[in-house]
């Protein structure tokens, strides 16, 4: 019996070897579906410029699929392979460092990090590694006294693209504009704890200040009910809607992943008749779940979604490639956190366009507004006169907004 089991062990180990025997770079292999493959397969350039590690903060979903599809395209044309590594779920520095260490091989030349925990340790451990941030404002790097402040001046750290806006004040302004545009008069706000997401607290404060200024001249003032409800990374409790003052809200402003954290409780409260059936949700985050999408629009519960355009991952790729090739932008002087391109989806028509003709909605790089033809001259390897300002201009152009979709 034990011999048989020992043989099974040997077979299991041998099979794991066979599982690894698919050559990631082999030409003619079927392009993997986004999310199933975690190493770039297509390599039309035929070059081998090394491997990029992508420490994602997501494991699945339409955004994740979109990132991978775009990386497939870009890395393939640049001659890189890439590998998705799973950072620490709670952004623990040791967990992130371990994830990078375990994935590090001789051919790794760059890291796209969606979390800032342990960045200084990663750069200290691998001083030749180029690192660019993505979908994170890297507050620990850019805030005064931040735990990774030493990284800011490291020439191997190439800045970051925030998830939407770097400055919470811009987030507050965006949601205020949406509330006014939609004509909501009684609103409540929800955010994550300030100690974890300080910019959300700034956004809430700015939102309330703008409302106060608006109310001074408005015929119908906007009422912001109570203080901002803080969610400790748990979904909103049903008790929230049992307060009398929240039972006839026009909308809830939740600049976080509202579809996951707010929508379930809101939907339950509406279904049970606890609150008005006309209560709407303005939030961030994108889900391609059919039921959620059916509930989007002025007739649904979710009336606006603000989300980073996934093509924003182009920025860390350009910065990394320039640095790896030894050809930085002439006008790039220091790393910084920049806003991302943004989809503000505030109508059914917008959502339909996103679903049918965008990278985010289809997960297909053929639908990207930032195709290889459009972006190849942003890389200094292809265009010596490419500039950092030019990259930012492209990032903030209409092409990467909902208006730019077919």
């Amino acid at each position, binding site marked *: 019996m034990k011999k048989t089991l020992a043989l099974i062990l040997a077979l299991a180990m041998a099979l794991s070897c066979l599982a690894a025997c698919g050559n990631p770079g082999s030409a003619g292999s079927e392009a993997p*579906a986004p*999310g*199933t493959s975690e190493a770039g397969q297509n390599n039309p350039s035929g070059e081998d410029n090394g491997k990029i590690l992508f420490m994602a903060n997501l*494991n*699945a*979903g339409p955004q994740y699929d979109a990132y991978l599809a775009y990386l497939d395209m870009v890395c393939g044309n640049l001659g890189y392979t890439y590998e998705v590594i*799973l950072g620490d*779920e709670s952004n623990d520095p040791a967990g992130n460092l371990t994830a990078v260490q375990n994935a590090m091989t001789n051919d790794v030349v760059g890291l796209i990090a969606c979390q800032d925990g342990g960045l200084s340790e990663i750069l200290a451990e691998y001083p030749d590694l180029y690192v660019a941030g993505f979908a994170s404002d890297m507050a620990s790097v850019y805030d005064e006294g931040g735990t990774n402040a030493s990284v800011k001046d490291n020439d191997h750290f190439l800045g970051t693209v925030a998830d939407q806006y770097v400055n919470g004040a811009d987030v507050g302004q965006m949601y205020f504009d949406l509330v006014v545009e939609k004509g909501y008069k009684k609103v409540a706000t929800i955010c994550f*704890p300030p*100690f974890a997401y300080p910019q959300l607290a700034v956004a809430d404060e700015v939102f309330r200040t703008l409302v106060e200024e608006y109310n001074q001249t408005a015929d119908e003032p906007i009422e912001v009910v109570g203080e901002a*409800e*803080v*969610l*400790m990374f*748990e*979904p909103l*409790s*049903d*008790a929230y809607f*049992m*307060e*009398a003052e929240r039972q006839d809200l026009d909308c809830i402003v939740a600049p976080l992943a509202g*579809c*996951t954290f707010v*929508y*379930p409780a809101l*939907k*339950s409260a509406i*279904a*049970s008749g*606890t609150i008005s059936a006309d209560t709407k949700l303005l939030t961030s985050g994108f*889900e391609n*779940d*059919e*039921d*959620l999408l*059916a*509930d989007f629009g002025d007739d649904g519960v979710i009336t606006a979604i603000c989300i980073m355009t996934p093509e924003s991952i182009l920025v860390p790729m350009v910065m990394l490639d320039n640095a790896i090739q030894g050809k930085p932008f002439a006008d790039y002087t220091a790393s910084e956190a920049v806003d991302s391109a943004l989809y503000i989806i505030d109508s059914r028509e917008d959502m339909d366009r996103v679903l049918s003709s965008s990278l985010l909605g289809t997960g297909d790089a053929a639908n990207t507004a930032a195709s290889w033809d459009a972006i190849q001259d942003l890389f200094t390897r292809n265009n010596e006169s490419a500039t950092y300002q030019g990259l930012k201009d492209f990032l903030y152009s209409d092409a990467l907004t909902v208006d730019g979709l077919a």
Partner: protein
Amino acid sequence: MKRFAKRAVGTLILPVVMYLVMMALCYSNGKMYFGTWTMWRSLIADIALSATCAMGIGLQFKNGRFDFSGGAIMLLAAIIAGNVAKEAGDSLVVLVAVSIGVCVACSLLVAVVYVFGRMPIVIVTIGMALLFEALTCLIYNGGGINLVGNSTLKSLSSFPGVLIPFLCCIGVYAFYSYLTTTGKRASLLANNQQAAANIGVRESRNVIISYVYSGILFGLATSIYCTTAKLTGAFNSLQTVTSLFSNILPVFIALALSVFCGDTIGIIVGAVALSLMSFGLEAVYTAEFGSALSFILTGVFVLLFNFIAGQGEVFRAIGAGLTARFGQSKNHAEESA
């Protein structure tokens, strides 16, 4: 009558005291909705989920088997059942059937590995939890399932639809415990494994059948669980085991209350008490401190409860002393009269 009253008091004292304490706390903080029908509608769904999970865990726990794989089984079943039910046109029947089917299949697998592997149950269930969690990362691209917006399928996780799986779960648990030979033999095995085996109880068969029942219970719990929140693959090893330690609390309470009301009602009472406490604390305290305080108070409550429940002999001695003393006083009074 006296005996019934004693049992009723013993059973109800915990949830009633908890209700009163939380009501006082909420009312003193202006949360007047505590105790309203709106609160109960929401709470019943939480109680149902907590109790059904606890029954699935408790069925094995009271038989001496600490099962770490329940959370992973439920997560895997929820992802499969949710996706299949959606593809079948949001069919509730398919959701429930596939939930129960997958849970029973996974539980059977655990039982088979336990019986034929002849390894300690903790080791088997940890290994199977690792395996099931790994599968959740692979199926459907690790994307899990999100049914929170599906009002059809969500009917089983909100009042009154949640009562269906809840009552079915109670029925199955009580049926197994009191009306099946397997359940009674399982009690024999739990009390003295060797003696039960010596008198002819076939332990292997008993274990496999009991895991079928716990699979059914987990399946019913899954039909509630899969629509309460967005579920994704378990990308951190043994993360589902953490939820086990929260869901097992009603089982500990049930074990203490079983002398009054049996473990079936004990689990429900435990789930009610803990849900009331959780609701009250969330309503009163701000999110940051509320969450932290909730953890601390839950821990202290569990310790105090188990301490009090463990002092049965002390209370009996006090009771006997009081009876003797008042009995003497009464006799003296009668003699004087």
